[in-house]
């Protein structure tokens, strides 16, 4: 009984502490507030059911994020919205925002790339990320936001590690190209 109370106290405190993170990740994965709420609830329920399997409670944040991400991926598979299948694997030319902005011969007080970073709003980056095709967005969220290794992403998505690398590279190019387009439309940069 004591253990159950301790478990409940620990679990409640951790979930309360992590709710903004779980919801943020779920929102980026699903792109939909209602679906994100469902996904977080599903992950919390699964985490509680499997709490006994968690050996090191220091690892709870990453463990529960993995449960949430696995729930998302298996939900996509069930509804045939497999994020890793509907993707055109053909690559496109690599794009670097830094290369568009950087001017090596400018004097020290002018730094267009730093200026652009400081002007980018959360909603600008959100728009660029949320508009990525599902199969690309998912790998960026898993690696850059959740902090999973390439090997972990490969295992969770059931794809070769080389495919993780190529999708990530393509996702970053596409994301930076979108930010470049948005920045020019909003007049945030004067670079050609």
């Amino acid at each position: 009984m004591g253990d159950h109370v301790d478990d409940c106290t620990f679990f409640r405190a951790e979930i309360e502490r992590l709710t903004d993170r779980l919801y943020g990740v779920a929102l980026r994965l699903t792109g939909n507030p209602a679906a994100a709420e469902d996904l977080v609830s599903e992950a919390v329920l699964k985490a509680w059911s499997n709490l006994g399997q968690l050996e090191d409670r220091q690892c709870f944040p990453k463990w529960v994020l993995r449960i949430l991400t696995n729930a998302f991926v298996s939900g996509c598979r069930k509804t045939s919205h497999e994020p890793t299948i509907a993707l055109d694997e053909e690559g496109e030319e690599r794009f670097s925002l830094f290369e568009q902005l950087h001017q090596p011969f400018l004097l020290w007080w002018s730094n267009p790339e730093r200026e652009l970073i400081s002007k980018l709003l959360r909603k600008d980056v959100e728009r660029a990320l949320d508009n990525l095709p599902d199969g690309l967005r998912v790998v960026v969220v898993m690696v850059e936001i959740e902090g999973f290794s390439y090997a972990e992403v490969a295992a969770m998505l059931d794809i070769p590690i080389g495919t993780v690398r190529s999708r990530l590279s393509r996702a970053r190019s596409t994301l930076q190209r979108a930010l470049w387009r948005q920045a020019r439309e909003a007049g945030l940069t004067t670079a050609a």
Partner: protein
Amino acid sequence: MTRSDPIRCEEVISHLLEYLDGEIDAEKRRQIDRHLQECRGCFSRAEFEKELRKKVQQLGRQKPPRSLQRRLKALIDQF
């Protein structure tokens, strides 16, 4: 202990994102670390990519709506 061979800017740039992801071997990491201490152009590029990555990482936290907070509380109260 032997010093690793220096590498060129092109090679650093081609491995930069994997370097920032912590997905390269120790030898290559040492080479890139050393290059970034000496090459201003590559250093600027690495700093830019890190800053952009921070902006993306910030999207992983979002204030949850009250409806979700209520739902989770009700769920955990049942445990």
